[in-house]
């Protein structure tokens, strides 16, 4: 008999194998929802698939009478904007700091400890400070995302840069490179694929912080909607929203992955 570790399903086999557990989960949900609705036709906890489809169709097609905008679209745009700006700020900060900390030992000694300290502070615990400093507008939401992920990314990138073979830095200096050139021509380009990788890992926390920020103070956004309708336990809206967020997260991950492969082919080839 072939050893278990040597059984490799083909392409079709993999797709079917992957779908099965998801289908089972869906089935369990349908049965549970059906049971609750037999007991209480108005049950809100596990809405039927039909009810969710209705709710989401309504939010995705009918403009809100008050604002004239399509709710799902407006929420998505608002959230993606915050997420995008927050992540962009974090990325740029982490890139610059990571580069400086990684390349310049003196800066690593100076800023390393404070970056570590900031990295371990759970950002949601200091939300009040953020509001007081930045107000309740977009700034504080964007800041929560940025503060939430930038320190981790910075440490990750700095560690990567200082882990680059010392031979490269020596070689570059024998080729006449100064400190600035070492940073931008040796460290920076090699850091880019790592940056995207670090970013991919940080997207999960970024969504968490976005939702947390929108739950605290907001009038639009995916997290806002989820926490608003939670007030009347509208699971028929919450569940499709969660699914939608998951799909957006998967899409973002795929885009980043593809981007990295396209932009930095040398980083994805077979290493020798």
């Amino acid at each position, binding site marked *: 008999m072939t050893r278990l570790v040597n059984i490799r399903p083909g392409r079709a086999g993999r797709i079917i194998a992957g779908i099965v557990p998801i289908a089972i989960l869906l089935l369990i949900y349908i049965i549970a929802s059906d049971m609750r609705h037999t007991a209480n036709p108005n049950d809100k906890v596990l809405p039927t698939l039909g009810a969710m489809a209705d709710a989401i169709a309504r939010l995705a097609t009918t403009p809100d009478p008050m604002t004239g905008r399509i709710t799902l679209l407006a929420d998505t745009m608002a959230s993606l904007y915050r997420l995008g700006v927050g992540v962009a700020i974090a990325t740029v900060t982490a890139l610059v700091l990571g580069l400086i900390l990684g390349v310049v030992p003196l800066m690593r000694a100076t800023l390393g400890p404070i970056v570590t300290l900031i990295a371990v502070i759970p950002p949601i615990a200091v939300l009040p400070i953020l509001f007081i400093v930045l107000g309740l507008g977009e700034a504080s939401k964007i800041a929560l995302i940025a503060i939430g992920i930038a320190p981790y990314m910075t440490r990750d990138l700095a560690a990567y840069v200082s882990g680059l073979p010392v031979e490269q830095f020596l070689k570059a200096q024998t080729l006449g490179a100064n400190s600035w050139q070492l940073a931008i021509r040796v460290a920076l380009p090699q850091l880019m694929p790592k940056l995207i990788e670090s970013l991919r890992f940080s997207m999960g926390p970024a969504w968490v912080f976005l939702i947390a920020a929108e739950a605290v103070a*907001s009038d639009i956004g995916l997290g806002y909607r989820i926490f*608003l309708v939670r007030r*009347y336990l509208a699971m028929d809206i919450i569940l499709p929203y969660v699914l939608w967020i998951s799909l957006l997260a998967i899409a973002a991950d795929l885009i980043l992955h593809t981007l990295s492969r396209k932009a930095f082919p040398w980083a994805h080839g077979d290493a020798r």
Partner: protein
Amino acid sequence: GGKEGPAAETQAEAPKQEFNIGWSIYAGWMPWAYAEKSGILKKWADKYGIKINLIQVNDYVESINQYTAGKLDGVGSTNMDALTIPAAGGKDTTVLIIGDYSNGNDGIVLKNGASMADLKGRTVNLVELSVSHYLLARALELSGMKLADVKTVNTSDADIVSAFSSPDVTAVAAWNPQLSEIKAAKGATMVFDSSKIPNEIQDLMTVSTATLKANPNLGKALVGAWYEVMEIMAKGDAKANAAIDQMAQLAGTTPENYRAQLKATYLYYKPQEAVAYALSPDIIKHEDAVRQFSFSKGLFGPAATSVDAIGIGFANDKTLGDKANVKLRFDPSFMQMAADGKL
């Protein structure tokens, strides 16, 4: 199903011994915490041969959601949330105790403003779809404005105090204890509070109708314990003060602060008073206002096509809305037993 009404559910539920009652920190519900810590609740539960677990939930909405999902047998709730969450979710709910109404515990506070008129056109931070939202709607209505005259931003109750510290926030609607912190801030003026709409924001103890039908002892024990605490508090003696100090401690605040909150809470210390209110026509008027607001904000869910979709039952078989779909029942009979000393 809904047409069979509570009878069907009553059959489904068997009597049981142990009950979970949820509550969250709020001036009008702190007596429950005291009842538990002081052993009063256990005394009454023992008397009726049952066990009652009082479960503190930090997040108020979560406690109501848990009740609606069937994880709790009863929960401390406002009249509005009892209507829009469990009742609108098909969970037949009985109002066992009308504990108090907010008599200034909810308010609207402005920076750089002296009256409701200054609210027009501003952005108001509040917990959307909560009693604060209702308070705002009523305040605007009484001042000749509409909800559309202001913009609202949903703000979590835990963060509303720090929100008000932020310069770009100039108007909030909040409840206590946050309200007292907000009022105390420099340049803050309270332009409206719930004392101007007495009895419209009520703090209740609600329990599942089916559970109560199957276990009337639960109702008796809860009501008995509640009014024993009320009696202690009403006396105004050293024991009352000690009890109130302890409640303050449990609420995470100072005794002074808590006393200030209590002042803004109209507690029905005596069961007779609560029963009298429950029997009066006022209650129907007040609940009607609440349900109109709730329906207008879509809180009855997408399936509800009219404000009458969900029925509210009162003493003596009076109802508002769909008689065949009564999901929230004001039942003063247990408070009546307390008033009659029959517990």
